[in-house]
């Protein structure tokens, strides 16, 4: 289908307007992160100023947000790693084998994804208190796995279903066990899918606020929880808040840019079921 100049133009205009809506708050926020305190909330907003790192110095050194950054990194990457290690083989099994209850299992898994975190917050709190998991990195990782593993299984299953089973069968006839065939011929093909899955899961775990607030302790709170402390009852410390926000956004943006090719390939690979 040929796209006329007019259609193309209107597409660009619509995208431009959307981008403005998305980017203006981001840019304004990013700028505020570098503003000295006196012009945080000046009206009209100041666009040209001498940038300063004092906000970053404050949040990282005085408020020890560096520790929270570390917590976020440990918990997000830890939960993504475990979710992949458990979810990818499960997805493969659900893609390749029919067994008693396999269909119900899949539906149950997707239903886990639909539960809003607030539903599980209270029972989790009680459980975590009982098992001494509150305020531990592992506890929060465990809580996130409830949401990450179903996502990994559903995404990865889609990728595996797309691959003809003759691919592993061929390897199995050629002298390899099923596990070896999975590792040597199937996994290389779904690598873009694994990367896309990992990234989406990482974003979920990295951004998550509610469970981290409830189940995290003083020493294990994550960056989103730390960021919220700058929103006080009486006033909002905008510069500090945006400094932390910038640090929260950066890894996601950088990862997405580095992996964008794999990501597009991975998102195009599956999810067509």
């Amino acid at each position: 289908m040929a796209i006329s100049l007019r259609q193309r133009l209107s597409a660009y205009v619509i995208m431009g307007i959307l981008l403005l809506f998305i980017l203006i708050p981001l840019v304004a926020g990013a700028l505020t992160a570098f503003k000295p305190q006196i012009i945080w909330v000046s009206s009209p907003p100041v666009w040209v100023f001498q940038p300063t790192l004092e906000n970053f110095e404050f949040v990282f050194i005085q408020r020890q947000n560096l520790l929270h950054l570390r917590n976020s990194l440990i918990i997000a990457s830890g939960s993504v790693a475990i979710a992949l290690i458990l979810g990818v083989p499960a997805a493969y099994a659900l893609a390749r084998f029919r067994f008693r209850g396999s269909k119900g299992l899949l539906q149950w898994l997707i239903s886990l994804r639909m539960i809003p975190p607030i539903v599980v917050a209270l029972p989790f709190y009680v459980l975590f208190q009982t098992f001494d998991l509150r305020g531990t990195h592992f506890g929060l990782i465990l809580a996130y796995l409830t949401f990450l593993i179903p996502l990994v299984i559903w995404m990865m299953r889609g990728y595996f279903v797309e691959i003809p089973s003759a691919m592993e069968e061929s390897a199995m006839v050629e002298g390899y066990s099923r596990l070896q065939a999975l590792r040597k011929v199937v996994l290389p093909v779904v690598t873009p899918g694994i990367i896309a899955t990992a990234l989406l899961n990482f974003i979920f775990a990295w951004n998550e606020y509610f469970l981290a607030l409830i189940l995290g302790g003083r020493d294990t709170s994550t960056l989103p929880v730390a960021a919220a402390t700058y929103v006080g009852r009486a006033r909002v410390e905008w510069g500090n808040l945006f400094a932390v926000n910038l640090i929260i956004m950066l890894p996601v943006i950088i990862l997405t840019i580095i992996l964008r090719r794999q990501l597009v390939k991975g998102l195009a690979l599956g999810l067509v079921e």
Partner: protein
Amino acid sequence: MKVVLQDLVKQYPSSSSIAVNHVNLTIENGELAVFLGPSGCGKTTTMRIIAGLETPDSGHVFIGERDVTDLASKDRRVAMVFQNFSMYPSMTVYENIAFPLQVLKLSKDEIDRQVKEAAGLVGVGHLLQRSSRQVSGGEAQRVALARSMVRRPEVFLMDEPLSSLDAKLRIQMRTEIKRLHQETGTTIVFVTHDQEEAMSLGDKIVVMDHGNVQQVGTPQEVFFNPRNVFVANFVGTPTMNMFDGTVKPNGGGLCVDLAGIELKLPERFPGASTGMPVKWGVRPESVKLVDDGQPGDVPGTIELIEALGSRQQVFVRAADKLFSAMIDALHPVRVGENVHLRFDHRGTHLFNAQTGLSLAEPH
């Protein structure tokens, strides 16, 4: 190696019909056996059981003298070429062919030597460094062949390896498989639904339907002496003319009454008896068109003509039945012309309408 299937039964849990129904079969060492049948006839399942990719519900598989029924695929020393898969996409042509050798822990030089030898044999020696995306469908299928060869399997299993290729390439690859078979002398089991492919390749053809072996024989046997109605209809293009009829006495012998046409039966059908409901068939190649009829010829009118190069297929309406005749393209015919059909009695067939079995004397 010789392959023996002993009373194989396989039923998929999700299906009510039996995929493989008590199949007994011996494929001799060095033979090229073709499993032929429509889709869902059990031919692929039978092959997958030989490969160890499916477990039979009961029965045994022997390769040579070894009972391999409980052996994993990787330990069976068979090679398989698939219909919908040819190359590992993450590997180059070279890596693909080397893949089955890597598990054998051979030296690098030895692997290199064998990869090049196999690649040369199927004509992909110049493509070794290409990735899977840089080769055509036909080349990819040759790579699959080379990959199946390097392990020097005792049996080659080929599951419709040519059906995804275009017509010209398919015929070319068919010849190469035949050549490969002659050069290596390895037993090959080949699955296809294309009866022409089966005829041109097979030393032995195993016709299957509904999980049952319908007939085992040489291409000539299944073509000229089909054991039952299914084989008669399935083998041969264009398909056999076949009509319902009843056996009647005729002078000293028997004739078949096809509702409007009475044909004297030759003595090759000892199974026929008066009053028996039958199916009478004749291959289009055994139907001749003659201008002046003699007793025994059937008058009719030409309804349709299909040119097929050196031959032409002529459809003749006679006594409300449509006969097809395969005749020389140079024989002048036109639509609407009145002709007489003359049947070569060596090309006629008679089957019991109830059992479907041939009434001809066994060969």
